[in-house]
């Protein structure tokens, strides 16, 4: 330990013992900050204190000296705990940097563009609860006539999840040229995922395809949350669900496929369980609450509807997302 620091401590202590003035305690606080900066360990501070006390009260030295030795012994472990803590903090900073790189890779890998389709208004919001999302949305556009969308929830997080998503993307891209049906897309992606990912990785996925010429929406689901269909004329919601196993469990799975026709003002909400399983202080947010919110803003453009829903649910959850949150809305103009 630098001698000058020791001298400063000793003088300050002597001054304080004489006057018991708050000013000296304030100065002591500054000294303590300097000690931390210079990485002086707790046991060294006590040793310094011992030396200072012995100088101030020489006749007490023999009697109280051992009590400080005792305290030094006790503080050794505190010093070690402090050093360990500092090293863990540095390690965490390094991990943070790696994580930021992974997030960037994920963003780049999973970028998608919202299609522009005649007569269809599309809104999308997808917010990760932590840095890396387990939710995935990917669009495919076919001229101005068709739009396909996958809304998936990967059970698992981080890089493995991101790799899984890139498989979904690869699967969809490789099928884009053929006029592929949703059940077929799900079958192909299931095979890719089943073959490539380990057994702990499952994906639920909703896949939909809108064809402008006929205003039809064809969909299939791999164990995913049902989508919601709003029928403007009847002012009521209907669940859109189709039978199908989660992706990645079995090699050969048949996926049910259904079709509906959209009328003006109708919209479809595709979501992940981060939306339906939002929690507030009283428990899960009821589905009726979500439907009520949708009804309130049903006449707004698609993007504004999903933004509104996200903002309101985020507020209800006390500004915290417990799970990744994804909403995609197809509205027939």
């Amino acid at each position, binding site marked *: 330990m630098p001698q000058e620091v020791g001298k400063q401590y000793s003088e300050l202590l002597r001054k304080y013992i004489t006057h018991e003035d708050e000013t000296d305690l304030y100065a002591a606080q500054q000294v303590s900050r300097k000690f931390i900066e210079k990485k002086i360990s707790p*046991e*060294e501070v006590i*040793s310094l204190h011992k030396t200072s006390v012995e100088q101030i009260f020489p006749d007490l030295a023999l009697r109280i000296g051992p009590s400080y030795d005792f305290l030094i012994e006790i503080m*050794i*472990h505190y010093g070690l705990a402090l*050093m*360990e803590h500092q090293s*863990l903090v540095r*390690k965490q900073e390094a991990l943070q940097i790696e994580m930021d790189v992974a997030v960037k890779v994920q963003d780049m890998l999973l970028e998608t563009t919202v299609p522009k389709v005649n007569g269809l208004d599309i809104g999308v919001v997808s917010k990760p609860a932590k840095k890396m999302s387990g939710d995935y949305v990917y669009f495919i556009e076919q001229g101005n006539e068709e739009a396909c969308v996958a809304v998936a929830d990967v059970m698992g997080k981080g890089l493995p999840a991101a790799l899984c998503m890139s498989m979904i993307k690869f699967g969809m891209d490789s099928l884009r040229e053929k006029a592929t049906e949703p059940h077929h897309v799900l079958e192909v992606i299931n095979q890719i995922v089943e073959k490539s990912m380990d057994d702990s990785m499952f994906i639920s996925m909703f896949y939909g395809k809108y064809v402008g010429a006929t205003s039809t929406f064809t969909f299939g689901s791999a164990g995913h949350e049902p989508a919601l269909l709003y029928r403007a004329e009847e002012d009521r919601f209907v669940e859109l669900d189709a039978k199908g196993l989660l992706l990645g469990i079995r090699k050969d799975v048949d996926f049910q496929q259904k079709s509906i026709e959209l009328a003006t003002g109708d919209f479809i909400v595709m979501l992940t369980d981060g939306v339906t399983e939002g929690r507030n202080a009283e428990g899960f947010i009821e589905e009726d609450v979500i439907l009520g919110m949708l009804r309130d803003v049903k006449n707004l453009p698609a993007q504004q509807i999903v933004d509104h829903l996200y903002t309101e649910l985020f507020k209800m959850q006390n500004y915290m997302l417990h799970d990744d949150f994804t909403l995609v809305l197809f509205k027939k103009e």
Partner: protein
Amino acid sequence: MDNRSSVEIFTEWDIVAARQLGRNEAKNSGFGTVDQARITTAISELARNIYLYAGKGKIEIDRLSTDGMKGMTIIASDEGPGIPDLRKVMEDGFSTSGGLGAGMPGVKRLMDDFKVESEVGKGTIITATKWLR
């Protein structure tokens, strides 16, 4: 002059004996109170590891004097199960999180030089040195 002294570790009381030996040696070598406490804590941790994981072993203390540098070395040896994953026991948070004490990273920090040789099924030798400044 014999520069080496040692304590066999069989029971928990032997840990205290090893500490005592280490403290005396440290004091005689001219280490200050804080370094005495550090060296003793390191010996304590190493002796305790022998007692807990190997059952029996030995703590040896060498007084060093080379090239005008003075110091002391602790050698903790046992013929216990050995350490299967050295990297793991040298990681921060591994032993402290389980409340096992300062652990190997702690001993490494308390001393200046630190070396482990371990073979599964054969035993472990840990050598740790502190230099007098």
